[in-house]
């Protein structure tokens, strides 16, 4: 008997006006696995993530976190279900009115009610896990480079030792070396925590580095899911076109051809 998925989406649909962004999307994230969702811009990856996190409400479908249907839950219950999750945003989304350590310790203090001195110690410990020294703790996020902000964002995402971590385009805006550093940190930190992770990305190299399984989204639906090491010879025309970066293929681009 297989274990229940950590996250399960069943026939989730979401539209903005007459634009159908998610179209009966179904996807499972298994316990302890790293699932990377790839797909072109505007295919619904971010919208899917926002629906799971409760930032957007889908029109139909079901979303389960640890077997609990989270759609339609009262706000307080939804907030409680998010206690077991962490999230690294595309551009880190650090609170610029707070110093680095308070950003990292935010969830510990606000949602878990931890006292400031204890939370500060944990924040410094988490910062060291992402390769940042304690001298960074008092700095303002505005003084950091994008690579450092992402590392602080990662420290914030893992600060409460969550069971599930979401990563939104973790390597976007970074040079290849820093992108590699972030990928390694994500892999090491999540393995250490034993967390299940859902990453959305269009960076194939990064996806292959951090994924156990990869799913490809096209026009709001999953068109392929498989093991990360199978992606090169998936036999799926959508995956082949996306991996090779070909213009010709079943994936239609929203651009005018010359």
């Amino acid at each position, binding site marked *: 008997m297989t274990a229940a998925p950590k996250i399960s989406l069943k026939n989730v649909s979401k539209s903005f006006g007459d634009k159908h962004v998610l179209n009966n999307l179904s996807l499972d994230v298994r316990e302890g696995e790293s699932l990377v969702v790839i797909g072109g811009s505007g295919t619904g990856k971010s919208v899917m993530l926002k629906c799971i*996190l*409760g930032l957007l409400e889908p029109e139909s479908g079901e979303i389960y976190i640890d077997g609990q249907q989270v759609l339609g839950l009262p706000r307080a219950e939804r*907030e*409680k279900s998010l206690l077991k999750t962490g999230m690294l*945003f595309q551009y880190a*989304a650090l609170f*610029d009115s707070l110093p680095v350590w308070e950003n990292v310790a935010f*969830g510990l203090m*606000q949602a878990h009610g931890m006292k400031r001195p204890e939370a500060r110690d944990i924040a410094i410990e988490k910062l060291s896990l992402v390769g940042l020294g304690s001298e960074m703790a008092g700095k303002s996020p505005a003084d950091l480079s994008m690579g450092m902000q992402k590392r602080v964002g990662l420290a914030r995402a893992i600060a409460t030792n969550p069971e599930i971590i*979401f990563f939104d385009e973790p390597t976007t805006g970074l040079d290849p070396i820093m992108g590699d550093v972030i990928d390694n940190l994500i892999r090491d930190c999540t393995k250490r925590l034993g967390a299940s992770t859902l990453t959305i990305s269009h960076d194939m190299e990064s996806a292959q580095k951090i994924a156990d399984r990869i799913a490809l989204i096209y026009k709001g639906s999953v068109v392929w899911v498989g093991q990360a090491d199978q992606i090169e010879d998936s036999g799926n025309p959508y995956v082949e076109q996306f991996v090779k970066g070909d213009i010709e293929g079943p994936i239609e681009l929203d651009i005018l051809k010359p």
Partner: protein
Amino acid sequence: MELNFLAAIGRVTLRFMGAVGHLTLFTIQAVRNIFLPPFYMRLFLRQLMSIGYYSLPVVGLTALFTGMVLALQIYVGSSRFNAESAVATIVVIGLTRELAPVLSGLMVAGRVGAAIAAEIGTMRVTEQIDALVTLSTNPFRYLVTPRVLAGVITLPMLVLVGDIVGVAGGYLVATESLGFNPSSYIKNTFDFLEARDVISGLIKASVFGFIVTLMGCYHGFNSTGGAQGVGRATTNAVVSSFILILVSDYFLTVLLLD
């Protein structure tokens, strides 16, 4: 042609009613959340400083020069029918009932309302508000409640200071340039001043404090479209605060007249 005209009116009306409904729900939520835990004392105290203490110079200067000008203008008018002795009474009643609350409200709207809209608007477009949600923190209680509560409490205090400074400004002009006797000016100031003159001004100030902070939060919270959207939110927060302060001032005056 006529149908097009009617359709345009219908569209504008629907849009207007939609905005009114949206604002009403936001207002209800703002008031409701004041009485619901958790209460962020640290943030509330920070807002007391930001809205109250740092607005003292601008409110004080406005009140000082308003009191001075008022004494001059009323002297010119009242001397036409030999009623110069009314200058002190009119200055104090004009300031406490009307000018100190309205002008302080407008000045704080320009200073604080704009800053609130810009700060929350930036948090919206940089996903910081989404980050609050993922950290199991209700962004409404974290961002809106402390600001609205601080606005309601601090604006009456500012107006009280404005009353005193404005009366002092009138006293200075009356005694130094217009030749009034200092002790009889002070006597005339307090002889006809009633507690309800001051209290009605403070009630107005509290309502204006609510309007200014609510408009800043509302427009910031709902800003879209990057830097341009934040700029638009800031402008809308100030303009709508100005209009609502002036309109509500009339109705509050009617309500508090007796």
